[in-house]
């Protein structure tokens, strides 16, 4: 069974790549993108083996390992999603013993680039801890436990998150949870930013993490390398216990998902009276598209959760802004908010999935389609950007910088929209289908996703350079530059948006059938 699932995963990965050249290019880019980082980390770990600084080895192993575990737990929710082969609901109709299914799905989670990278990192960690033969044996056991913790934790978190988000109350709770999480992440970042810079701070962080479930397996390696066997054994036992508990929890979650498959409905079901936004926005094609997009932002967990995160994420900068009085963090809030909102629109057509045929069949004009889609995020930006911009000076940023932050933020927002208007008519990457677990990603598609995202980000940045330059000048005390940014940002941004809408509309007119074909192929 385990072998079957692994083979299924590999086949899906291969077929995903075979379907389009773009997926291969994307995967190559992904390998280059992450590969450089990975190689650096691997070299660093091996070099550590040949230095006699055991304290440093321990700190690096524990902090790095804990970060790896946290990454597996959080990145799927925040960025990439897990892949739907592993969506337990898909196995609801098969008579597979639950324990074997649980093991198979967990192991299949290792197949793919993140799994390979993690495996390599764990091996390098074993190398860095290989001071004696017993140490190697302990390290190998610990590495396996560490990797197991990563995978199991990520499975549990995504399955639970999907279940929670499928109900309305769950989504509200998740919103609050996200806020709390952000407020918690802030202090950690602040501590790392201030205290983590020096060696002693780093050691202290390691000392704490060593006695958390995130750190146990890696601490076992490090302690083994140091030859303190009792501590090593204790950590190893704790790590093993964690893995066993996590497996039991994963199996429990899996069983509950298999026995109560997620309802297809967007939650709640029930009646909604009237036309909602369709009655309030103008009765034109553009108004209709805006109303539809707005309705989806409210009802579709694939859109409202990221939307919420986008709105709240910049608030995380408040913590360094207040705790360590960082003006840069305060000035960054509106910029981050504007960038995230504008850039976030670049794959909007992908979220329509094949329902996009309604736009194609109706012969709606490109400008209506392009501008209508921007309505919900424009609305969000109207709330968030000025709020964050004013919040900065209220909390201590010099008021003279307000025009600059506002100007640069508007530039980032409008340029983001401009880029989105063009890209969402050119190439869309696969996103979870409507009704699917919002935290899924397509096998082999992460590369394309990252490539498109990186290109869009670079384009937004390049277009915003004039305003950014003025903003930097204002930061360094050039008085007139702040006001110049307030003029240049919106002006250039407005021009970029006008051009983007025009170009995007032309592309939309010529390519809509191709886009639909792409979306059909992605299903």
């Amino acid at each position: 069974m385990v072998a079957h699932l692994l083979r299924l995963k590999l086949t899906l990965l291969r077929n995903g790549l075979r379907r389009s050249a773009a997926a291969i290019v994307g995967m190559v880019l992904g390998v280059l993108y992450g590969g450089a980082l990975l190689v650096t980390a691997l070299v660093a770990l091996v070099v550590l083996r040949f230095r006699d600084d055991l304290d440093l080895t321990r700190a690096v192993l524990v902090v790095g390992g804990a970060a790896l575990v946290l990454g597996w737990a959080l990145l799927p929710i925040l960025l990439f999603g897990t892949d739907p082969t592993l969506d337990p609901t898909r196995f609801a109709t098969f008579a597979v013993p639950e324990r074997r299914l649980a093991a198979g799905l967990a192991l299949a989670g290792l197949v793919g680039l993140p799994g390979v990278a993690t495996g390599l990192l764990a091996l390098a960690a074993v190398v860095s801890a290989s001071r004696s033969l017993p140490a190697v044996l302990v390290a190998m056991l610990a590495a396996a436990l560490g990797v197991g913790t990563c995978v199991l934790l990520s499975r549990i978190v995504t399955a639970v998150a999907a279940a929670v988000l499928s109900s309305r109350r769950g989504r509200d709770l998740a919103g609050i949870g996200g806020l709390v999480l952000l407020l918690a992440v802030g202090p950690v970042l602040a501590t790392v930013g201030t205290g983590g810079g020096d060696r002693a701070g780093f050691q202290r962080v390691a000392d704490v993490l060593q006695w958390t479930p995130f750190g146990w397996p890696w601490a076992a390696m490090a302690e083994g390398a140091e030859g303190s066997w009792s501590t090593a054994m204790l950590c190893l036992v704790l790590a093993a216990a964690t893995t066993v508990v996590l497996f039991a929890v994963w199996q429990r979650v899996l069983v509950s998902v298999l026995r109560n498959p997620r309802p297809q409905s967007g939650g709640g079901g029930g009646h909604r009276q009237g036309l909602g936004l369709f009655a309030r926005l103008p009765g034109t094609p553009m108004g209709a598209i805006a109303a539809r997009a707005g309705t989806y932002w409210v009802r579709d967990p694939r859109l409202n959760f990221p939307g919420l995160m986008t709105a709240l994420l910049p608030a995380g900068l408040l913590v360094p802004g207040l705790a360590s009085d960082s003006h840069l963090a305060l000035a960054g809030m509106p910029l981050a908010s504007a960038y995230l909102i504008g850039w976030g629109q670049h794959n909007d057509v992908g979220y329509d999935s094949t329902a996009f045929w309604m736009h194609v069949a109706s012969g709606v004009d490109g400008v209506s389609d392009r501008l209508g889609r921007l309505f919900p995020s424009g609305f969000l930006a109207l709330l968030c950007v000025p709020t964050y911009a004013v919040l900065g000076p209220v909390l201590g940023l010099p008021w003279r910088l307000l025009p600059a932050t506002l100007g640069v933020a508007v530039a980032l927002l409008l340029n983001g929209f401009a880029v989105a208007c063009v890209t969402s008519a050119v190439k869309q990457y696969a996103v979870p289908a409507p009704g699917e677990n919002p935290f899924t990603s397509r096998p082999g598609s992460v590369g394309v996703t990252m490539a498109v995202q990186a290109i869009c980000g670079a384009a937004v940045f390049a277009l915003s350079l004039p305003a950014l330059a003025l903003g930097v000048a204002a930061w360094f005390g050039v008085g007139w530059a702040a006001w110049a940014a307030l003029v240049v940002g919106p002006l250039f941004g407005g021009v970029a948006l006008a051009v983007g809408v025009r170009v995007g509309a032309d592309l939309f007119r010529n390519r809509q059938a191709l886009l639909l074909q792409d979306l059909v192929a992605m299903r």
Partner: protein
Amino acid sequence: MSQSTGTSSGPPPPARPEPALRLRGLTRSFGAVVAVDRLDLDVPRGSFYGLVGPNGAGKTTTLSMATGLLRPDAGTAEVLGVDVWDNPVAAKSRIGVLPDGLRLFDRLTGRQLVTYAGLLRGLDRDLVGERAAELLAALGLVEAQDKLVIDYSAGMTKKVTLACALVHAPRLLVLDEPFEAVDPVSARTIRSILEGFAASGGTVVLSSHVMDLVERICTDVAIMAAGRVRVAGPLEEVRDGRSLEDRFLELVGGVTAVEGLAWLRTSSD
């Protein structure tokens, strides 16, 4: 080659110069597979046209190319004399489409979805409101109109898609498998609406693999196989004195006799 298209199987009515739908040399391949191969077809105005063929014959691909949803590799599609790919906006305003296997914006309520379809076509909101109400009433969806489309049954989903296809009063309706997964009551409703539409001068093209149904409601029929039209024309001519199913099997290829599968017969235990 197509043995007889609309042109060769009798002249179209003289007062109606151009057909409702004219396909010429339509070709489309997916990778190495040729789904539709130099297909010619004329659909006369006011006809109730059935397109039948086995699975994989290219029916959906043909209808997608005729309605502007899929760009052909070669060939042309004209709706009432307007080229779908040269002048898409004018052509699309005359077509109502019910595609098969594509999603809907199913997180809207039924009423919102029909309204959306109407507004996308550039209709005035009050007009859309009236028409949506009438269509939903005629299709028996009034009770469900404020429920999300995702909670609809398959038959209700077909009906609400049909309402979307009709809301802008098209002159040609192109329906891909409109009766699939539809219960007899809903099928009767859909059928009466379509017959009313055709009787008032509209043209209906539908694909199906239910021969009985096509035989009962269509005035004209084309049999497709392997990306080509095998025979096309008025129903009586195509049938040629036999049942449509017999004629279809004769053209498309015989049935394979079922061998083996003895283990499926539970009585053999």
